[in-house]
Structure formats: structure tokens, C-alpha cells
């Protein structure tokens, strides 16, 4: 080939800029979306149509059962027992107070409300990143609040009438178990995690054994143990309250899981932080309290929230040792002969499901948000 032939072909200079054309209709907007996401292959098309048919098949019946055919108002279960009736929301309305407070004396329920509102306010203070003075919030929540809550709920001789714990129940007890679990398990978990990473062989041994033991057995057996064995381990006159026993069990159980979450945070800390703190001459506890733990705990907040979700779902198990948590009150209420009927069980469970789902889903979204925020912070 001649040089000229190549030369004429190889050199090229674009004289004017090519115009930017709008994308063909199929690569943009709704059409592109539908094609990419619903009909990208024949198989995908079949799945789309099939799934749509499935949704169309399920949705109307669900709607009818839960909304349009549901019994919204009724004095007792008669209307709900009618053939073809949907969910019996009247049952939920009638039992609402029981679901919330269990058998707590009706005149005293304001005490529960106050405790809950107080707790909620403190939790929001702790959880909303923008609010200031987290240290004070933590002190109020972890130290002051438990004492106040105890006397509010249980009562104080001469000031507030005593309400025995066997009357406590409902959502209130579920929240109580979860709250005690988290409040007790956080500090315990931190100690266990530090112990597991400690240089001291006996301390380390003890922490490893405790953590692995608790994580290796089901919560139910821990509750059984707390319920039947704890009273045996203490002098008879000290026999712990029957609500206190599962609380201890749940706290120890949650602490072992919390310890692993915290340990992950400690492990993720760069070695330089430890070295820097030591170079400043900080002794162990000061180093942990001022430098390491604040950072390590911040990075594992999503993990802490996740274990709280697990703990919250697990509170349902305390029913096995006779505690009337929310789910147990539903179980009891659905057997009430005044209401019993074919739709009552489903209604009760759907109501419980909505409660637990909203709570857990919100928490998990919160934890995901934190995770994104933390990740963004690290990238910067």
C-alpha cells in the first residue's frame, strides 16, 4: 500500500462539533424504565405479567378482609361471627386497654403513660443526632430514669399506691423488658467486650466463656434457668420477683450479643488511636473512656440498633415464664368467650404484627440511615 493511501485515510480532524441529540425514546424516561425493568427479556415479561396477576389475585381479597368486610364497631363477638365477616377490629378496640397495660389498675394507668412519655423523650434526645448534650442525656436515661420509672410504676408506700408486678402487662411490659434489656446490656456488653480483648488471661477467659456460652444456647433456656434456678441460688427470703427473673435473663442474654457488637467496633479502631492515647500517657480506663469507646461505640450504633431490634422481637418469649407481654395479652384475649370466633385469632395476630412491624421497620430504617451517614463521614 502506498503511503499516500494510508495518509489520506488516517488523518482526520473534526471540523464542527456534532450536535447533542436527544436519546432515542427507548433509552430514556418511562419507556426506558419499563423496558429495562419489566420487559428486558421474554422471561422478564412473563414474570412481570405473572407477578401482576398474582398481585391482582391477592390484593382484592386482602383489602376486603382487612377493610371493607371488617367489623369496625360491635359490642361483642356476634357480628364478627357472621359468615363472610372480615377482620374484627371491634375486638381490638374493646381490648385496647388490656393490650396496652395488661391488668394494671385502670385508675393508675396514667403512671404508665408518664413513664413511657418520659422514656420516649429521653430516647429521642439520645437518638436524634442534632440534639446537644448527649452525655447528660445518657446519664438521665441510664441512671436517673430507671429509678424514677421504678417508683412510678411500682409505687411508693404512702405516696403512690403499690401495683404488684403480676398485674403488669401488655405493650407496656414488652417495652419495659426491651428497655431494661438495652439499658442493662449496653454497659455489661462494653465490659465484656473490653474483657474479651484484655491482656489479663483470667479476665479474658471468663469473658470468652460467658459470651460463647450465652450465644450458644437459646433464649428460652436462659429464661427457664432464670425462672427456676435463680430462686434456688439465693437464700429463700431473697427470692427475686417473678418479673425480675426474666429481666435478669434477658439482660444477660442481650449483653453477650452486645459484647460482640462492641468488640467489632473496638476491632475496627485503628491501632494508632490506642498508641496515640498511650503516648499521651493516659492510663487504661481514661484511654478507653475518653478516646477509644466514644469512637468505637459511634461506629457500631447501627449494630446496637440491630441488636435492639432482635431484642425487641425476643421479648415475646418472656411469656414462657408467665409474663404478660403484649403478644401474650393477645393470646389471652383471643380466647375470651365473649369475642371468640373464626376471625378473632387472625385479627389479633394482624394487630400484633402491625405493632411489631412498625416498630422494627422504623428501627431498621433508622439504623440504615445512620450507617449511610457514618459511611459518608468515613469517606470524607
Amino acid at each position, binding site marked *: 500500500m502506498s503511503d499516500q493511501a494510508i495518509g489520506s485515510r488516517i488523518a482526520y480532524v473534526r471540523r464542527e462539533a456534532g450536535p447533542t441529540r436527544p436519546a*432515542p*425514546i*427507548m433509552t430514556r424516561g418511562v*419507556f426506558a424504565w*419499563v*423496558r*429495562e*425493568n*419489566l*420487559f*428486558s*427479556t*421474554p422471561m422478564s*415479561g*412473563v*414474570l*412481570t*405479567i*405473572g*407477578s*401482576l*396477576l398474582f*398481585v391482582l389475585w391477592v390484593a382484592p381479597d386482602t383489602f376486603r378482609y382487612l377493610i371493607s368486610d371488617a367489623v369496625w364497631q360491635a359490642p361483642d363477638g356476634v357480628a364478627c361471627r357472621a359468615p363472610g365477616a372480615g377482620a374484627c377490629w371491634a375486638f381490638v378496640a374493646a381490648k385496647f386497654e388490656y393490650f396496652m397495660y395488661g391488668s394494671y389498675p385502670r385508675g393508675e394507668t396514667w403512671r404508665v403513660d408518664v413513664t413511657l412519655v418520659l422514656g420516649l423523650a429521653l430516647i429521642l434526645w439520645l437518638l436524634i443526632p442534632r440534639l446537644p448534650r448527649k452525655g447528660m442525656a445518657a446519664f438521665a436515661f441510664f441512671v436517673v430514669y430507671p429509678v424514677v420509672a421504678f417508683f412510678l410504676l411500682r409505687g411508693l408506700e404512702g405516696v403512690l399506691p403499690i401495683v404488684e408486678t403480676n398485674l403488669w402487662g401488655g405493650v407496656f411490659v414488652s417495652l419495659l423488658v426491651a428497655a431494661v434489656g438495652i439499658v442493662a446490656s449496653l454497659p455489661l456488653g462494653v465490659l465484656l467486650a473490653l474483657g474479651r480483648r484484655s*491482656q*489479663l488471661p*483470667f*479476665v479474658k477467659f*471468663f469473658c470468652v466463656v460467658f459470651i*460463647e*456460652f450465652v*450465644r*450458644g*444456647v*437459646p433464649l*428460652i*433456656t436462659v429464661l*427457664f*434457668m432464670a425462672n*427456676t434456678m435463680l430462686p*434456688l*441460688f*439465693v437464700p*429463700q427470703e431473697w427470692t427475686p420477683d417473678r418479673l425480675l427473673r426474666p429481666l435478669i435473663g434477658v439482660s444477660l442474654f442481650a449483653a453477650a450479643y452486645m459484647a460482640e457488637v462492641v468488640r467489632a467496633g473496638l476491632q475496627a479502631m485503628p491501632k494508632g488511636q490506642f498508641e496515640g492515647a498511650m503516648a499521651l500517657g493516659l492510663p487504661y480506663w481514661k484511654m478507653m473512656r475518653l478516646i477509644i469507646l466514644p469512637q468505637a461505640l459511634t461506629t457500631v450504633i447501627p449494630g446496637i440498633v440491630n441488636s435492639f431490634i432482635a431484642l425487641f*422481637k425476643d421479648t*415475646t*418469649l418472656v*411469656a*414462657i415464664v408467665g409474663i404478660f407481654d403484649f*403478644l401474650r395479652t393477645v*393470646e389471652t384475649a*383471643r380466647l375470651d368467650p365473649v369475642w371468640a370466633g*373464626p376471625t378473632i*385469632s*387472625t385479627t389479633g*395476630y394482624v394487630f*400484633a*404484627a402491625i405493632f*411489631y*412491624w412498625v416498630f422494627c*421497620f422504623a428501627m431498621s430504617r433508622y439504623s440504615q440511615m445512620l450507617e449511610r451517614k457514618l459511611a459518608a463521614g468515613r469517606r470524607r
Partner: protein
Amino acid sequence: MSDIQMRQPHVPWWNEPKNRGFVYQSLLFIVLAFLIWSAVDNASTNMRARGIPTDFSFWNRTAGFDVNLTLIEFSAAASTYGQAFWVGLLNTLMVSVVSIIFATILGFGIGIARLSSNWIVAKLATAYVETLRNLPLLLQLLFWYNAVLKPLPGPRDSVSVPNISFVTPDIVPTIVCAFIGGVGYAATRYARTIGGVAVIVANAIGALLMLTAVAIWLSGVVRFSGKAGIYLNNRGLIFPEFVETADTWPFAIALVVGIVGSLAFRHWARGVQKETGDQMPVALVAMGLIFGLPLLTTLVFGAPFDLARPELRGFNFVGGTRILPEFAALMFGLSLYTASFIAEIVRAGILAVNKGQTEASSALGLTRAQGLKLVVVPQAMRVIIPPLTNQFLNLTKNSSLAVFIGYPDLVQVFAGTVLNQTGAAVQVIAITMAVYLVISLVTSFVMDIYNKRMALVER
């Protein structure tokens, strides 16, 4: 230099790190020792005071209660508490293994569906995961048991599954359906080559046509008639029992030969590929051997089993095999709940494989399927398996929720009934916990070895 040397001897002994450590450890030790000693002391006093046994002699005493599901010989009159322990343990293992299998299959399916390029499929899978994992397992178990299985009618009004039979398809409808389906498929193929709104319309119509064709064809071929001998009622799911006949043996042998044969074939095919590079359709041949051989013996010798169909006598069914509603509810609950966690693990595992890996395998000319099999899956499985075993352990521990719906697992039989009857709380709970602990520890030990072997080699 001299400064340091001068100072060193003056460190007070309590500031020496070693001594401090010793003091801390001694303190912890003393506190623990005191706690344990006082617990033991109190326990022995309390137990004597209440007449609670302190030894294991109950193990060999007659149990005196019945269990409605036993994998080993068990009767109230002749069996001991020790045997009750084994009954419970085996039931725990049975429901755990069965649920693990279902949860894994479902979890992988949903995890992959969450990554589907089809938006609706992905969203449905997400809805499944977000619903199931945010509800307490106990609530789900109670729902299945109390709201779904228990309200089923009694044995006399059982839900009966009809016999499903297939008639030879008529030639004309078959051709018509094939034509409709073919047109549908052609439409979806054609849709890719044209532009505009027509693509979506063609795709939607094509998909509808294909589905319609399949539905029409099936409605012509499948017949529901009579009773299949499968009944669903509040006593459980009852289905025909397989009874051994003279023709069972050829069938069983064919099955074993099929399995062993396909393993051998795979081995041989690998050798051939190594030598000559030729690839055999291993999966196809294995399917043929495993399903084909037994089918062949059935054709030659006749049905391998007699079906002992359950029959309604009075108020209950006689004959047949029964799955207890307690077992079914526990299995459903555990599988569906755990599947939502497994799905997330699978999704994360697949996402953990860098997109560059797929691109590189495509660029080398591997097909999509090959790229998945040889590059993506092996890497994803390394990420998936450790948390997956963790879920298996969780499922096994969660099977203890059996106690709430009366399935006779270890906790219900042993830590429940046996404990109540013997009062030997400490011993029974210690044994129960030890069982779960051993399962956990053995599993984590095996997993540790696995992880060390499979870890990707890094610098």
C-alpha cells in the same frame, strides 16, 4: 540514661502493670468464686428444703407420659426419662434439618430474586424480606398454628386434595396452543428489534400470549378427579403411606445406581475434559440417570410402592402418614422466617463480588452461565457460607419455640415435662443447655477450619 535508671527502682508496686493485672484478676476470681460457692451452697440448702433431687438418678426412672411424635420406640409405661431426652433431641434435630433445607432453598431463591432485573420480582422479594424479618418469630408461629392450621375442619370435613391425572393431549388444541405461545414468543423476540412504544406493547402481549397458551394447554391436559388420599384437617396433613412391595427393590437399586452412576460419570467426564478438552452434558446425563433409571424399572416391574391410602373411620383417619400440625407450623414458621435472613446474606454475598469479575469473564468469552458457575458463585459462596451457618445455628436454637405450640422438641419434652415431673431443675436445664452448646461449638469449630481453608489468599 542515668535519670531513667535512677527512677526505675522507685515504681510503687501497685503501679507496676503486672501487679495491677494480678490484683484485678484476683479480685474477679474471688468475687466469682464467692458467687459460685454461695449459689451452690444456697442451691443445696434450698433443694434439700424443697425435696428437689440433686443427682441424675431420675434418668433411668419410668417416664409415665406419652409423646405424640417419636422417632424411636417410646411408651409411657416402659420408657425412661432418659429415653424422653433422646425423643426430644431427635425431634429438635428433625424439625431443624427439614426447616434448614426449606429455608435455604427459599432464601437463595428470594435473595436472587431481590437482585432480579425485573422490578416487580425484586420488589416482591424485598417486601417478603422486610415483612418477615421484622415480625417476631413467635408471632409467626402462633399465626400458622392458631390462625391457619388449628381452625381447619375436623377429620370428617377434611380438605381433600383431588387426584391429579394427565390425559394425552389432543392434537388440535396442542397445535393451537403451541401456535399462540409461538406467536407470543416471536412477539417478544421481535420487540427487541423495533423501537418506540411498540416494544413494550409487543412484549406485554407476547408475555400474555405465552402465559395464556400454557394455561389453556394445561387445562386441557390436567384432570382433577376423585381423592388423592391427601387430607388436610386440624389433626394435620394426612397422606398415603408408601408400602414396600416385591417391586420396591429394583426401584431402590435403580435409584442408587442412578446416583452412583452420575457421580462416576461426572468423575469420568472431568477426566475426559482434562485430557481432550471435550465437555460432556454432565447435568443432563445425571438427571437422566437419577430420574430415568428408576422410571424405567417402574415401567418394567410396575409401581415400586403400594399406597396405603388413609381412610376415615369414625372420627379419625386410619392408615397413611400424618404430619402433625405442630410440626407443620414450626417448620413453616422457622423456614419462612429464616429464609428472610438467608435471602439478605445471599444478596450481600452476590453483591460482594465485584462487577469487574463478571466483565472480565465476559471479556474472556465465557458465557453468562459459565461466568456465574466458575467465577461469581465460588466467590460469593465464600462470603455467604459463614453467616449462613450462623443462620442454621439460629434456626436450631429457635426451634426451641416449639414449646409455645406444643411440638415435642427437646425443650418441650425435657426442659418442660421432664423438669416438671422430676423437679430436677438444675440437672435438666444444664443438660438442655449443654446440648445446644455442643451443637454450636462443634459447628463453629468446623466453620473455623473451613474459613481458614477457603480464605482468599492476600498479601
